[in-house]
C-alpha cells in the first residue's frame, strides 16, 4: 500500500504545479449553485410548502452542493485509460512493480481530493450565503467515507469503460451514456426524493444512486442507521464493480497489442 500512497502524494504535489488552472475550473460550481438556488426557490414557493418529500430549500441546496462536488471532482480515468490502451502508453506503466489499476486509482484520487476540497469550499460558501449553514455539521463527518466509496464506484465504472478500448476503438459513446445515467438516475440535478415512486424504485435498484444520491442525502440528514445503510449499499456495489473490473482487466491484459518501434 505504501507505493500507492506515495503515488497519491506525488500526484497531489503535481496538482500544485498549476493551482490557477485547478481553481479556474472549480469556479464553475458558483454559477451552478446560483442557478439551482433560483430553480428550487421558485419550486418551493410554488408548492406553498417549506418541506417537499422531507427536504427543505436549505437541505435541497446543500444536497446539491455535495452532489456537484461528487460530479465535478469524480475520477475521470475513462479517457486516460482508453488513451493509454490505444496509444500504447499502457506499456510504460506495466513495466513497474505496481498494479496498473492501482496506479491509476492513486493518481485519479489525488486529483479528486484536490478538486473536491476547492469545489466544496466554493460551493459551500455560495450555499451558506444563499440559504445558511448546512442542516447538520455531523453530516460533514459521516459523509467522508460515503464520498470515498462514491468516488471508488465512479472510478470502477470509468475504468471499466476505459478498458473497453482493448476491444472497441472509441469508448466515448459509453462515457456519454454513463454520464447521462449518472445525472438522471444518480440524482445529480434533482434529489431522488422528488421522483415519482416507480422511478425512485428503479433508481434505488441501480448503482448510480450509490454514487451521488446516497452520500448527498446522508450529508443533509445524517444518522447512524442512514450511515450504515449507505455504506452497506455502496460496499455491495463496490464488490460487484471491483469483481467486474478485475475480470475485464485480466482479459484485456492478455489481449494487449502494443506495436513496437
Amino acid at each position: 500500500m505504501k507505493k500507492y500512497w506515495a503515488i497519491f502524494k506525488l500526484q497531489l504535489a503535481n496538482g500544485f504545479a498549476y493551482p490557477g488552472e485547478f481553481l479556474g475550473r472549480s469556479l464553475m460550481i458558483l454559477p451552478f449553485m446560483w442557478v439551482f438556488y433560483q430553480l428550487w426557490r421558485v419550486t418551493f414557493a410554488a408548492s406553498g410548502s417549506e418541506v417537499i418529500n422531507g427536504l427543505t430549500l436549505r437541505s435541497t441546496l446543500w444536497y446539491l452542493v455535495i452532489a456537484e462536488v461528487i460530479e465535478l471532482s469524480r475520477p475521470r480515468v475513462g479517457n486516460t485509460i482508453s488513451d493509454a490502451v490505444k496509444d500504447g502508453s499502457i506499456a510504460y506503466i506495466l513495466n513497474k512493480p505496481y498494479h496498473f489499476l492501482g496506479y491509476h486509482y492513486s493518481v485519479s484520487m489525488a486529483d479528486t481530493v484536490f478538486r473536491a476540497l476547492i469545489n466544496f469550499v466554493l460551493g459551500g460558501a455560495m450555499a451558506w450565503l444563499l440559504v445558511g449553514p448546512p442542516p447538520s455539521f455531523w453530516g460533514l463527518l459521516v459523509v467522508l467515507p460515503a464520498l470515498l466509496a462514491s468516488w471508488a464506484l465512479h472510478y470502477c465504472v470509468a475504468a471499466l469503460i476505459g478498458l473497453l478500448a482493448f476491444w472497441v476503438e472509441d469508448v466515448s459513446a459509453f462515457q456519454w451514456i454513463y454520464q447521462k445515467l449518472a445525472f438522471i438516475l444518480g440524482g445529480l440535478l434533482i434529489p431522488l426524493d422528488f421522483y415519482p415512486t416507480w422511478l425512485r424504485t428503479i433508481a434505488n435498484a441501480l448503482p448510480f444512486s450509490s454514487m451521488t444520491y446516497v452520500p448527498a442525502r446522508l450529508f443533509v440528514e445524517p444518522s447512524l442507521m442512514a450511515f450504515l445503510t449507505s455504506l452497506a449499499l455502496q460496499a455491495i456495489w463496490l464488490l460487484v464493480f471491483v469483481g467486474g473490473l478485475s475480470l475485464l482487466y485480466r482479459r484485456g491484459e492478455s489481449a494487449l497489442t502494443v506495436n513496437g518501434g
Partner: protein
Amino acid sequence: MSAITVRRLSKTFQSKRKSAGLGGSWRSLFRPEYVSVEAVREISFEMENGELLGFIGPNGAGKSTTIKMLTGILHPSGGEADVLGYCPWRERQKLAYYIGTVFGQRPQLWYHLPAIDTFTLFGKIYELEDAEVKRRIQFLAEAFEIKDLLETPVRKLSLGQRMRCEVAASLLHRPRLLLLDEPSIGLDVVAKQHIRDAIRTMSREEGVGVLLTSHDAGDLEALCHRVMIVHHGQIVYQDKVSNLKRKFLTRKTVEVRYAEEVSQDFHLEGMETLKTGRYGVKLAFNTQQVSADEVLTRLSAAGTLVDITISDPPLEEVIARIYETASVNETVGL
C-alpha cells in the same frame, strides 16, 4: 550464466484493414478484414550477465516489440523467453524488481515535478529503505553528473539532461538488467556522449547487463560488446561489435568547410569525393585502406578548417551490405 535466453520468440499482430472511402468504411463495419503483421519472427538469442548487447535495426524492425515481450508487457504469439530466471509475461511484476527500463520516447519522470520526486517515488515503488534511497540518489547524481539538475522541474531540463536523469532513475533499485529503448534518440553529439559514458561506467561498476536498442550505429560502437541486427522481425546478424566494424562499418563520410576557397584535389587511396564546392567538400573513406587521421591531415593541409563532420553510414546502408554479403547470407539462412 545467461541473463536472457530467447528461443523462437514470435509476435504477430492482427491489424484491421479498410478500403478507402465511404464504401470501404461501410463494408468494414459489417465484414471487418484483418491482416496478420509479423512484428517478430522466431528470433533466438542469449545474453550473458553483465553483457552490453546492442539490438539494432531500422524503424519497424521489431526491436521495441521484442523488448516489450522481454519485460512481460506483451504476450508472444509463440516461443519462449527466460529473463533472469523468470518467464516475463507470466511473472511480470516479480521480474520488474530486477530490471530497469528506459524508453527514449516515453519519459518516466513526472514532467511538472523535480526529478528527485520521481527518484523518491521509485524508492517506494521498488520497496527500498529511505536511507538506502538517499545514498543511492547521491551516488547516481555523481555518476550521471545530475546533482544540480535534481531539484529543477523536469519540464525545464534539456533533452540531454532529462535523459541522464531518466537512465539514472532506472538504476535506482540496482537492477541486474537494463533495457534501454532508443536512449539517445534526438540527442546532440555531446549529450549522446554523456549518456554513453554514464551507462558504460554503471555497467562496469555494478555489473548490470545492458540490452540497448537503437538505430544509431554510433551507440553500438561506443557501448556494446556484441550486436544483433534485426530487420523485418528477424535477426539478420549477430556478432562482436569489433567484427561488425571490421566487416561493415568501414566506410565513413566526412564533410568539411573551409574559411577560404580551396583546390579540389583531395585524392588519397581509399577516399572518394562525393560532393565538392568552392568552400567545402564531402568525402567517403574506407577505414581499412586509410585512417581517419590520414584523411584529416590531408584535409586540414588544404586550408583553414571552419567546420568538420564525420559520420557513420546510416544503419539501412549497413543492413543492405549485410544482405549483400554472401558469407552472412549463410548465417541469415537466405
